[in-house]
Structures are given as structure tokens and as C-alpha cells.
């Protein structure tokens, strides 16, 4: 067993890093942080994983194709929120219409939560995509494998 | 009879439809040539209709569309334009007959493209003739340049490419580099580019001063088709084209479009009075005079017949520019008449040159000694044409010279009269010497035939003339040269409105 200490440490730290990412993600309204930082931290957990167990192992957990879908979904989460507010009768990204007439700006809270989630997902998946491509030139995929 | 108002758009479209018909009839040459001739006949009828209407004092016209505010594409027939259109369309018809003979005799390639380009070019020439403002004139001027490019480079070899480059280069460079800025400048000063009786710029007092001189210079050199030296090199270079092209375009349509534009600009944009008052045209008058003499001198040294004719054209075109720059009514009249007279005369000469080439494949004057005896009809026509160009009565060419001298006297420029006389003498030397040598001198290489006088002068049994379609047209125009001499009075009266009379 090579690098046993590193592997154990990574295994121990992996979950707390993810948890911290989620904290930063959802605590953005109250303290420093938000989707950008959370996304990075989330990606860092997997990068750490790749460092210790090899890129192939990480790719098994989180395949490239899934990351691309996540990139799309994250961006669409954000843009979709905007489109949804338009469909609900407001302007683009006018979150107030999500919960109309709310006294405590619930619409704004939901809106911010949704778009920050979109930011987090996109940032995390994009960073990992870039990392995957930098670190492991992926083998040529055949036409059929898509 | 079609109304003159309708005749103008028709005159523009008929050649284009003819062009389409020629394209569609690519496969059957006889039908194709028939299409050309029918188009020519219809066009001639239309221009004559307009000519008659204009002679009765009408000014038919129409506006196609307005491109930018104050910048419409519009047409209006006035005496000068109507005259130019009749000359161009009439001679196109003649030239088409000639082309058929020439092109078939020479087995030239790409004949369909040749006739199509011709049709577009004549449409452009008609557009120039009837243009109601500078902008319209400019558009058709450029179309004329571009549509004749395939004709000039018809042969497609390196020489033709080089000639075509110079042709297009000089014409486009002068028109875009000088003519267009001049138009824009006029537009900025006056807010319009319309041809106005009495002169558009004359109505704008602020236009006086050095601007008039600069503008006139831009127009004079910007209209490269007028071949005022030093904007002339395109013309000799265009001689790489087949002879029908030289005959029609570079004796009639293209070059006359240039000098026509200059006359029109002097009369309708500046106004004769404005030029007279400011004296702005005097320098250009001298440049034109210099151009006349210099081009004649160059022509004398050309052994290639077409080159000699080309330089002669440069010289003769400057007569018209000179007439315009004299800034007198008689000068303008002389210039306008020269358009008609020179067109007939020079076209005759070019067609004869083509006939000689078809029959004997000779292009050098030195090789043509004694040739008159086997081609008496061709050289006869050549002789008449040359007489007209020189300005000897009873040929049409004598009238413009007469009016130009009158104009020069009016303007008090006696030196110009001297220039005209000298030029005529030089013309005698370099043009009349050709038929004289052809008839009276022995062929250089053979020397067998004795030089006799009288009966056995022409060996009727050994005639070797070009095909009939190559001979008849120059004889026809040669006859026209004589006829025009006697019908000059109606032409004079037709043109009178141009100089404020009638």
C-alpha cells in the first residue's frame, strides 16, 4: 500500500470538504461565500481524490459526460430561473414574482438560492472538466461511444 | 408610336433583354445574331422616337428610385443626350452587322459572351446619354467601364490581360479617384447633382473662386473616358480588343460617353457663363490644345494602324474638351457636332482597319502599301473617313472645326485657331497618307506591280476584299459622313437649346 497516510487523510477529508462546500453554498446569504467559492471547493474535493487515487478512479465516480451535463444544467438553472420569472410575468431575473406579494421577500430568497445553486454546479463541473482535460488527455473516444 | 416617356426605360431595358436572349440562344449562332440585330433595330427606333420628341421641345424623363435623399436615379432626355443616344444606338446596329462578319471570319471564341457584353455596354451608354443627374451618369459610366472589360480582354492572352489591367486601372482610378469626389463635392455644395439649365453651380454663389477651377479639373481628368492627356493611356491599350470593339466602343460609345459627360457637366453643372466669368476653364483649354497636338505627334510615329487611330482618337476627343473649355456657345456647339462627326468618321476608319486584318492579316501601315489596289472599296471608305477627320469639305468633320474656330474667335483665343489649323495639317499627314500609300505605292515585299496611272490602276480581276459584312458597314458610315455635311443645319437647330437658343 503506497502513500497510505495520504490515502487515509484524503478519505477522511473528502466528506468534510464536500460538506464545507455545501455550507459555503447555502450560507452565502449570511456570510462570505456563494456559488463561485462553493463550486471551487466542491471541485477541489474531487481533485484531491484524483491526486491520491488517480484520475481514472475519479472518472469512475464522476464521468466526463456527467460533468458536461452538469455544466449545462447549472447554467440552465440560472438562466432558467430568469426565464421562469419572465414566464411568471416579471422581467428577466425579477425574483419577486416567484412568491408574489410576500412580505419577507421570499421570492428574492428563493431566486438567490436557485441561481447560486446554478453557479455552484456550473463552476464545480467546469473546473473539474478543465482539470480532467489538463491532467489526463482522455483517449480518443470512438464515434459509437457517445 | 410609343410615348417618349416610356421609350426611355424601354431603351435601357431592351439591350438587357437582348443580352438575355443572346445568352439563351448560345447554341444557335444564327438566331443569336438575329437577336442582336433585332435588339439593335428596336433600340434605334426608340432613340429616334426620343430624338424626335426632344426636337419638338419635349423633355421626357422619369425617376427610377431615390437611393439617398437628394440622390435619385433619374433620366431625362435633352438635345445632347438624345443626339448621343441616336448616334450610339444607330452605330451599334451598323457595328453589329460588322461584328458578325468580323467574328465569323476570324473564328473567334466566346462569341456569345462578346455579344452579351456589347448589349450591356450599349445599355450603359444609353443610360449615360439620358442621365438626369451626375449620380446616374456616374453609375452608368462605371457599368460601361466594367461591361467593356471582357471585350477588351477578349483574346485572353497575356497581352490582353495587360491591356485590360491598364484599361480598367486608368478608367476606374480616374473615375473613383477624381470623378466621384468631384460629384460628392458638388453635392455637398449644392445639395443636388441634377443637370440644370444654366448650370447647377452657377446658382450657388459660394461656389465661386478657386473651387470652380479645382472642380473643373477633377471632372476633366476624372472622366478618364474623355482621354484628356495624361489620362489617355487606357485608349491605346484597349486596342488589344477585337476590331469591332475598337470601332464601336473606342470610337463611339465609351470615348463619346466621356466627352459627352464633359460637355454636359460644363453646360449643365458649371454653366458656360460661370466658366466665362471666372476664367476657370482657360488652363484646361490649353491642356486640351496640348493634348490635341501631342497626341497627333504621337500618332504620326505609330506604324500599327490601330495604334495610330487610337492616338488620333485621343487627339480628336480633345477637340470636344477644347470646345467645352472655350466656354462660348459656339465652342460648345462645335464640341457637340464633333461627337457626331467624329463618331461616324473614326468608326469608318476602324472598321476598315478590321476589314484589312480579316482579309490580309495586316496590322502595320508599312505593310499596306499597294493594298488599295486589291481592296479598293475598303480604302475608298477609309479615304472618305480620313477626309472627314481632317476636316475637309464636303465631309461632316469640317463643321465642328468651323464652329470651334468661331468659338475660339469669340473667346478671343486666336492661338487656339492656330492650334486647330496645325492639327488639321498633321492629320493630313498621318491619316491621308495611308490610303494614298495604299493606292499609289508598290507593295514593299513584292514590288512586281508597276505603278501606273489610269486604267490598269486597279486590277479588278485580282480583288481580294474582306467579306461583304465587313465592307458594307464602313461604306455605309462613309456615306453617312457625306450626308451629315449637308444635313448640318437641322442638327444645328436641334442643338440650339443647349446654348440657350432655339
Amino acid at each position, binding site marked *: 500500500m503506497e502513500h497510505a497516510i495520504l490515502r487515509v487523510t484524503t478519505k477522511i477529508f473528502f466528506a468534510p470538504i464536500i460538506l464545507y462546500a455545501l455550507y459555503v453554498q447555502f450560507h452565502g446569504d449570511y456570510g462570505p461565500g456563494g456559488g463561485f467559492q462553493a463550486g471551487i471547493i466542491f471541485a477541489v474535493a474531487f481533485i484531491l481524490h484524483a491526486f491520491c487515487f488517480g484520475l481514472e478512479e475519479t472518472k469512475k465516480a464522476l464521468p466526463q459526460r456527467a460533468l458536461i451535463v452538469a455544466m449545462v444544467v447549472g447554467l440552465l438553472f440560472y438562466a432558467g430561473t430568469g426565464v421562469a420569472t419572465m414566464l411568471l410575468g416579471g*422581467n428577466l431575473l*425579477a425574483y419577486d414574482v416567484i412568491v408574489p406579494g410576500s412580505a419577507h421577500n421570499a421570492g428574492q430568497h428563493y431566486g438567490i438560492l436557485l441561481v447560486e445553486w446554478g453557479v455552484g454546479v456550473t463552476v464545480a463541473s467546469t473546473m473539474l472538466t478543465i482539470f480532467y482535460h489538463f491532467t489526463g488527455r482522455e483517449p480518443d473516444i470512438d464515434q459509437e461511444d457517445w | 408610336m410609343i410615348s417618349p416617356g416610356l421609350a426611355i426605360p424601354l431603351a435601357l431595358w431592351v439591350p438587357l433583354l437582348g443580352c438575355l436572349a443572346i445568352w439563351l440562344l448560345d447554341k444557335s449562332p444564327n438566331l443569336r445574331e438575329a437577336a442582336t440585330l433585332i435588339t439593335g433595330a428596336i433600340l434605334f427606333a426608340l432613340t429616334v422616337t426620343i430624338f424626335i420628341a426632344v426636337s419638338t421641345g419635349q423633355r421626357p424623363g422619369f425617376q427610377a428610385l431615390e*437611393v439617398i435623399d437628394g440622390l435619385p436615379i433619374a433620366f431625362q432626355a435633352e438635345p445632347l443626350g438624345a443626339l448621343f443616344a441616336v448616334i450610339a444606338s444607330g452605330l451599334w446596329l451598323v457595328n453589329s452587322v460588322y461584328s458578325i462578319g468580323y467574328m465569323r471570319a476570324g473564328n473567334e471564341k466566346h462569341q456569345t459572351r462578346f455579344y452579351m457584353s456589347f448589349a450591356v455596354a450599349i445599355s450603359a451608354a444609353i443610360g449615360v446619354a439620358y442621365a438626369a443627374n451626375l449620380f446616374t451618369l456616374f*453609375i452608368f459610366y462605371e457599368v460601361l467601364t466594367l461591361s467593356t472589360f471582357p471585350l477588351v480582354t477578349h483574346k485572353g492572352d497575356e497581352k490582353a490581360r495587360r491591356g485590360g489591367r491598364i484599361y480598367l486601372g486608368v478608367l*476606374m*482610378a480616374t473615375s*473613383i*479617384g477624381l470623378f466621384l469626389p468631384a460629384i*460628392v463635392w458638388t453635392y*455637398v455644395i449644392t445639395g443636388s447633382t441634377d443637370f440644370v439649365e444654366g448650370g447647377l453651380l452657377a446658382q450657388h454663389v459660394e461656389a465661386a473662386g478657386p473651387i470652380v477651377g479645382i472642380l473643373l479639373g477633377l471632372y476633366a481628368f476624372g472622366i478618364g473616358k474623355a482621354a484628356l492627356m495624361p489620362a489617355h493611356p487606357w485608349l491605346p491599350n484597349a486596342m488589344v480588343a477585337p476590331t469591332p470593339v475598337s470601332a464601336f466602343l473606342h470610337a463611339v460609345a465609351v470615348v463619346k460617353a466621356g466627352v459627352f459627360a464633359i460637355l454636359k457637366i460644363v453646360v449643365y453643372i458649371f454653366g458656360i457663363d460661370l466658366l466665362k466669368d471666372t476664367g476657370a476653364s482657360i488652363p484646361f483649354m490649353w491642356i486640351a490644345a496640348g493634348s490635341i497636338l501631342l497626341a497627333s505627334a504621337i500618332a504620326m510615329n505609330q506604324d500599327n494602324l490601330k495604334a495610330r487611330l487610337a492616338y488620333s482618337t485621343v487627339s480628336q476627343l480633345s477637340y470636344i474638351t477644347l470646345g467645352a473649355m472655350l466656354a462660348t456657345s459656339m465652342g460648345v456647339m462645335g464640341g457637340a457636332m464633333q461627337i457626331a462627326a467624329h463618331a461616324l468618321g473614326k468608326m469608318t476608319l476602324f472598321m476598315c482597319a478590321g476589314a484589312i486584318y480579316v482579309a490580309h492579316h495586316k496590322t502595320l501601315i508599312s505593310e499596306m502599301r499597294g493594298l488599295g489596289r486589291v481592296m479598293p472599296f475598303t480604302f475608298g471608305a477609309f479615304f472618305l473617313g480620313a477626309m472627314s477627320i481632317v476636316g475637309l469639305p464636303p465631309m461632316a468633320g469640317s463643321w465642328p472645326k468651323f464652329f470651334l474656330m468661331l468659338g475660339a474667335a469669340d473667346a478671343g483665343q486666336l492661338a487656339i485657331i492656330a492650334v486647330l489649323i496645325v492639327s488639321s495639317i498633321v492629320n493630313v499627314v498621318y491619316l491621308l497618307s495611308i490610303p494614298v500609300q495604299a493606292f499609289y505605292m508598290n507593295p514593299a515585299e513584292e514590288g512586281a506591280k508597276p505603278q501606273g496611272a489610269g486604267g490598269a490602276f486597279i486590277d479588278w480581276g485580282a480583288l481580294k476584299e474582306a467579306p461583304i459584312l465587313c465592307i458594307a458597314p464602313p461604306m455605309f458610315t462613309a456615306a453617312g459622313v457625306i450626308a451629315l455635311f449637308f444635313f448640318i443645319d437641322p442638327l444645328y437647330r436641334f442643338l440650339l437649346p443647349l446654348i440657350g437658343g432655339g
Partner: protein
Amino acid sequence: MNLAEQLPVLPVIIPLVAAPITLLLPQGRAPHLWATLISWLTFAVSIALVAMVSDAGVISYHLGDWAPPLGIEYRIDMANALVLALVSGIGAVVFAFAYRSVEREVDPRQSTFFYCAMLICLTGLMGVTITGDAFNIFVFLEISSLSTYALIAMGAKSDRRALTAAFNYLVMGTIGATFFVIGIGLLYQATGTLNLADLHDRLAGQSNRMVEAGFAFIVVGIGLKLAMFPLHLWLPNAYTYAPSAVSAFIAATATKVAVYVLIRFFYSVFGFDFAFVGHAFTYVLLPLGLAGMFIASLVALFQDDVKRMLAYSSVAQIGYMLLGLSFATVEGLTASLVHILNHALMKGALFMAVACVVFRTGSHSIQAFAGLAKRMPVTTWAFILSGLSLIGVPLTVGFISKWYLLTAAFAAGHGYAAFLIVASSLIAMVYIGRVAEMMLLREPPSEGPYAAAKEAPMSMLIPMWVLVAANIYFGVRTDLTGDLAVRAAEALMLVAGGAP
């Protein structure tokens, strides 16, 4: 949803949402069809927007319902409505055109991402044009630039030099963007606002070093993006080695949008109250415009690569636009705006014609054009007609541009400039003439790599001829381009506080 109310945001949000969706589509034709459909839709809403602005005047749309300067504002007047229609229109044509060309020049496994990047680029350009917020301009400028870098690098499959070209552009573009954002930062420091109209109000009467430096940084930053001579060094290689469809798209749109941004800052943000704006016109834009016109045209003359020749020609044409706006008159500004539109039409068509040649011969060297009039007549005539337009022959849009520019030059008392303009078009005549002569008068090669050329497929010819037809149509009818540009120029001039 009230469509009329939401119309102003649609030209950006449609391609923005559509771009990521492209990645979910199966390989093959689907991404191309999707991108084309979206580009047409974008074009349609842009046209509707032009009509709306024409009727209702300036439209202001508050993103997130936050009134400016608190939130971001979309502010659409005639000037940017026209550029929006232009960008999306070129997009619609080029996207439709692209399929066969891209199929040949880009690996099929990349085509999904390629069309995604094209849509992103469209989004970015539209976003820059439409917005009324300085920082928003920066963000969308980055979107378009970043995608353009990648798209240019895609030419590497045909020629590895595309990578260097993209890298050079990336460095220059990043410097430009940084300068721009520094400028905006300085202006924010001086005013506390990012909204363009608000900036104009709050800058009025201010004259301090932050504003001066901010102005300088913005002009240089945008100058890099629009390839203002002598900041153009990235452009020739980028246009030459990019995939043909990309060249056609960015040559017709990217620099035009940057010129528009420059106009917006000169006229709508700073205005003539600032002496340095006048100085910049007289001592920077005018001489650089003239120099660019000449030097770039002369360089174009000696290029044996047709794409590179057209690229240098673009630098020269940008000189015309700068010249027009430096006159600081309604006529000059109109000329500049009209030329933005018209040059896009002609350069788009020219690059598409070259793309057709590349498609059949695999080369954009001038040798590949020999005798093409016989092998590819339709393409040849498209090239020649658009070339005539570039020269400025009457009845083409090029002539309209030149007419406006010349009248502006004379009216502004810069008569000498008029002659320099026409002299530069004469150089254009020579370099276009070289290619035209090659196509028309040379014999097609009977052997070698170019011998097998035949006419390009219909899917390429039709979009290309749409643009060629536009070159003619707008050269004859100017009520859609010229008249609207005059209105746009008058409105801009009013805000700028120009006397004439």
C-alpha cells in the same frame, strides 16, 4: 408573459439559453440545425426590436426589475438596434452556411461543442451591443472573446498556426479587456455608477485625472478589440487561420460591435463637453484611421493568401469607420454607422466565398483561385460582386458607405481626407482585381490539388448569395440602412451635445 414587454431581452436570452442546450443534442446534424434555428429566431426578434425602436423611440428594460442605476439596464436606441439586427442577421446567414464547411474543417466529435461556442459568441456580441451598463459590456465582451479564441484555435485541424494565432489574439484581447475594465473602474471611482446614461449625467462638468485616465484606458482597450491600427496585429492571423465559417462570422461582426462600443463611449458617455474627446478625434482617431486605411490596404496588396488579404482589408475598412466618427458630425457618424452595417455585408460575403473555395480546393492561397470562373462560376461571381462592393462601385452598399463618408469629409472641411479615402479604395480595387483576374482570366489547372474543384454545394451557395443580394439591395435602397443610421446618428449627437 407579455411578449412585447419582454422583447428587449429576447435577443440575448434566446441564444444564451440555447447555447448550453446544444451540448445535450446528439452528434450529427442536430447541433447545426439547432444553432441555425436559434440564430434565425434571434434575428427575427432583433428585427421586431428595430421596428419597436423605430416606433417607440428609446426602449429601456430593467433586468431583475431593478431601476437603474441600481440594476442593469438594457437601453436600446436606433444605433444599437441596428447593430443587433446586423449581428443576428449575419449570424443567421453564416450559421445556415456553416454546416458543410465545418463538417470538413472541424472534427465531427467537436462539432457539438463548436456550434455551442458559436452560439455563445453570438450571445456575447448581442449582449455587448444591447446593454446600457458599462460592466455588463465587459462581461459579455469576455463571453464573446473567450469563445472566439477557442473558435479560432479550431482551425488547427487544417493549419497548426491557428493555435499561435488564437494565442496571440488571446493575449492582445485579454490586455484589451483588462484596460477596458481598468477604465470602467476609474470611471466608477469618479462617479459611483456603471449605467452608461447615468455615467454621462454624472460625468458632466467633472474634469479630473481619473476621468482622463479612464477615457484613455477605455479607448485603448476597445481599440485593441476593434483592431484599430496599429493595435491590429492579432487580426490578420486570427482571420486567416480560423475555420472559414468562423472567419466569416467574426470578420463581419466582432470588430463592428467593438466600433459600436467605441461610438457609444465617445458620444453617449463622454460627449463633446470634454476637451479630450475632441483631442482624441483630431489627434488620434483621424490620423490613425487614415494611416490604417493606407498602410493596411498596401499590405493587403502583397498578400498571396486571400483570407489574409481580406483580413488586412478589414483593418483598412475599420479605418473608414474611425475616420467617419472622428469628424464629430451627424454626417460623419452616419457614415461610420452605415459602414459598420455595409462592411459586415461585404466582408461576410467575401469570406463566405473564400470558404466555398476552401471547401472545394482545401486552400485559401491565391493560386487556388486560378480559373475558378469556369469551375465555380457561382462562387466566383459572388466574390466579384462583393469585391466590387468593397471597392465602392455604385449600386452596391460599398458605394453608399463611400458616399456618406465622402460627403461627411467635404462637409467637415476635410477635403483632403476625401481624396485619401478614394485613393485607398483604389488600392482595394487592385487587390480585389488581382483575385478577380486570377479567377476570370487564368486557365484552370488541369492537374495538382486544385484541379478537381467544382461548384460548392447549394447549402453554402444559397446563404452566400443571400448576403450578396443584400449587398446589392441595400446599395439601391437605403431607407432601411441609411435613413435609420441618420436617425441614430442624430440621436447620438444630441446626447453628445454636438453643435452641428
